[in-house]
């Protein structure tokens, strides 16, 4: 009877303590899940966007360098530009400590990150390739990422000629590719060899099929049986590629 009275007297205090424990449990559990969610958000989202921004910059640097080199710039431009971009990135990066390593692709046919082959068989390639390796160390993330920035403009030229009066009517089919995919051209340069020198063709007719394929026609005055042509293209990125081809007479009418 005495025990019962004691229990009855303390039951109110037990109620308060139980309520306190429940409250603490609610608060700590909710805060734990909240923090976990916030950490995951920081871990997943922020570095992805930074990575993309860095990738866009790296590809653009290689692209601009290749445009410069193929338009008469020095072959060292690629290395100089990549170094300058990395320097700017280190200075301006506000997301954490950035460790960057770059290497110009040197495995044949590439040399010092470049492959420029403007051949005689109707195929021309202008390409630059650099390997980038980054480590971004922030307060809530430590990300390691590597990628290759490969920029390639390819030109394929094929064609034939037909005799038209005293002249040779040349028909060329040109295909422009960016990283292996059809791409648009900003402009073409066409010339042919007349036996003594290269003649620049000013008034050629150009048909754009809209899918990276172009048809060029012009008249050439050439004595020889075959006609040597040279086609140069500047793509929309400003990269120049050139291909030479020896054309033969077509019997088609």
């Amino acid at each position: 009877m005495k025990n019962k009275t004691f229990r009855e007297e303390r039951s109110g205090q037990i109620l308060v303590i139980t309520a306190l424990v429940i409250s603490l449990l609610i608060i700590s559990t909710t805060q734990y899940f909240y923090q976990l969610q916030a950490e995951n958000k920081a871990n997943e989202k922020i570095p992805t966007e930074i990575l993309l921004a860095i990738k866009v910059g790296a590809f653009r640097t290689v692209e601009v360098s290749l445009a410069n080199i193929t338009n008469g710039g020095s072959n060292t431009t690629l290395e100089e530009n990549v170094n300058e971009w990395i320097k700017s990135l280190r200075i301006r990066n506000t997301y954490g400590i950035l460790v960057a390593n770059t290497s110009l692709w040197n495995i044949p046919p590439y040399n010092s990150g470049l492959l420029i082959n403007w051949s005689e068989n109707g195929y021309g390639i202008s390409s630059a390739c650099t390997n980038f390796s980054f480590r971004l160390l922030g307060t809530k993330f430590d990300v390691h990422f590597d990628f290759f920035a490969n920029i390639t403009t390819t030109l394929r030229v094929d064609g034939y000629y037909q005799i038209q009066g005293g002249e040779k009517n040349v028909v060329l089919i040109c295909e422009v590719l960016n990283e292996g995919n059809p791409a648009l051209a900003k402009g073409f340069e066409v010339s042919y060899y007349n036996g003594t020198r290269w003649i620049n063709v000013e008034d050629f007719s150009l048909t754009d099929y809209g899918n990276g394929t172009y048809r060029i026609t012009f008249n050439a005055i050439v004595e020889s049986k075959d006609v040597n042509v040279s086609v140069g293209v500047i793509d929309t990125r400003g990269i120049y590629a050139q291909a030479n081809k020896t054309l033969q007479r077509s019997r088609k009418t």
Partner: protein
Amino acid sequence: MKIRENRKGQIRIIEAFFSALLIISALLLTSSLNYPNKEETLDELTQMGINVLLELDNNGTLAEFIDNQDWLGIKRSLEILLPNGVWFNLTVFDNNMTVLNQDFSITNGKAPSQRKASIEYLCVSRKTTFQVYTVRLQLAKVG
């Protein structure tokens, strides 16, 4: 004896009231944690800013606008890409951190008093002469 028992009843009520108060306040506190706080809004704005700049730069538009000093083009693009109720101010710097758009403010109004998110983005020029621009975009929620 009777008076004492009556008082006990009042104490029980106070204790029960106090217990209920504890649990309710705990629930109120946790529910307030689920709402985004100022810090979260700032992260959201930072992400929005980087995404907008990435979208503009990915296809070379941003670099072309800067190369051609087409500040109005940048302003119009930001007005289209950013949602209503977001204030922006964009500044373009060259390699030496000299402001390039000194004569034209790329903004959609007066700076609000709210906290601002500031994003610094590196944009490589499309000119054959190599140039890296620093683009500083400030964003804030209005209202």
